[in-house]
């Protein structure tokens, strides 16, 4: 695995959402790159995301998952626009009834550290409604 993937995933395992930051021009890149798309520097480091953002779109996958995800169905995939001005795809924690009806687009969500830190957790960022107990 390449270095930035390993470091990004290592962050998730430790309950941190990392955003790549260029050491030269200080701009943020998501997803992480091998060279800064703004200044082409290969000196790239990390900034810790505040973990807060806005729910841009989500969908609940119920049927025909990729192989290996069958037991996780249904699951919600979301694009979150982080307050830092970058965005990423992640998962949404379900409401108590196992569904996602409580979520609404363009409302605040926050990174859930528990989503990626558990035993065998997938290296993907999880989000919940801002202020909900799951966060």
């Amino acid at each position, binding site marked *: 695995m390449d270095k930035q993937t390993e470091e*990004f995933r290592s962050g998730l395992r430790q309950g941190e959402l990392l955003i790549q930051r260029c050491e030269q021009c200080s701009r943020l890149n998501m997803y992480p790159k091998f060279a800064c798309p703004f200044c082409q520097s290969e000196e790239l480091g990390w900034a810790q995301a505040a973990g807060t953002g806005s729910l841009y779109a989500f969908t*609940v*996958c119920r049927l*025909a998952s990729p192989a290996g995800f069958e037991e996780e169905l249904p699951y919600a995939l979301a694009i979150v626009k982080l307050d830092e001005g970058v965005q990423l795809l*992640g998962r949404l924690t379900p409401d108590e009834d196992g569904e996602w009806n409580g979520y609404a687009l363009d409302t605040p969500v926050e990174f859930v550290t528990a989503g990626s830190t558990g035993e065998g957790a997938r290296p993907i960022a999880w989000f919940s409604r801002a202020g909900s107990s799951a966060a």
Partner: protein
Amino acid sequence: MSLPVAPLNITAGDANDPVFVGVGEIVSGRFPDRSFIQSLTQVAIRALKDASMVPADIDTVVLIPALHSFDQQADLVFSRMVEELGLNRRAKANFMVHSGGSTSDNVVRVVSGLISSGHAKTVLVLQAEGWGSADLREMVTMLSWNGIPAQWERESGLNFNSIGGLITQRYMLESGSSAEDLAGVCVSLRKWANLNPNAMYANKTLSVEQVLASKMVSDPLHAMECPMMADGGVGFVMTSAANAKAKDLPAVRVAGSGGVVSHYSIGQETDLATLGWKIAAERTFEQSGWGPEDIDMAQVYDSYAAVMSIAVEGLGLAKSGEGARLIASGATSPGGSGIPMNTNGGLLSAGHTGVGGGTALLAEGVRQVLGRADAPRQVADVNRVLIAGTGGSYMDSQVLLLERAGRN
């Protein structure tokens, strides 16, 4: 935003103007007994016959990829079709062009360049796909890996229907389109498919109620709003205007094109309800001097109702936010009051033949301008057709403008 647009170096009437002179197609659906190479051979012969040509007229063979098998795809790259068509020691070149669903547009750009520059005289473009007969689970997984970054998104369980779900949800919010509006798009496409003997669903009607009663696959997409993977194939022949004239062949020229690559991964698309279509349209119309009002017919990539609706709006063929409602209203259906769209039934009703879904729309556009669609699907007085391609994670939006070539 500055536009990387220049006029074409070629104008109507130039001897080296690249033109379409024939198309061939086989029926879409599930045909497990149909051989891949047989399908390619059939579309080749049909396209050549349509162009009043024989294999010996071809100097370059260009292949569009098949996604059902990398093994079989390798046959294409290694020139199997040259040998199948008896062109050993005759064909100058054989190669593949691939940009996923928008290959339909990019292959025409590539072939046009070959012909207008003189690197090729007459080019046969071939596509066949075996998705409908392939192992569904294997295909779903393959499609969940292709175009989805392994490092950042694959571990989420994202698949192609979920990409469609994300786009559809955002589009519904921004346009105020209802579930009925989007289901209505599928129904409108089916009306064209019912007139197309090559469509997967030529003989099945569809209602909004049926769509909304089908299982939820990836909210808000129901099963009947997801494209059905199909076997199918398309071929076409392009040559120079001078060659078409010498043979007295009716022809269709390329009046311009435009496009944009807006992202790679869906998680990095900043405007899901617009994608790249406005930029692509601006560039296309800038190059051609046409406007949306000059279009007689549109063939627009429709893997999902929202994908087509967003494109139709960005292209200026519907008012902002009104794409789904326009198509659902029947205006673009047979006998409708607006410009006809996706007259083969589109991917959603003719069948999603992989990279060929867009190619089938392209072939239908050429066929309509040539006046060779089956009655009553043939639309009267079609001179100018817009072809719009995208696919994968909807990373690009590509547009071609085709027009009937003069025969003076």
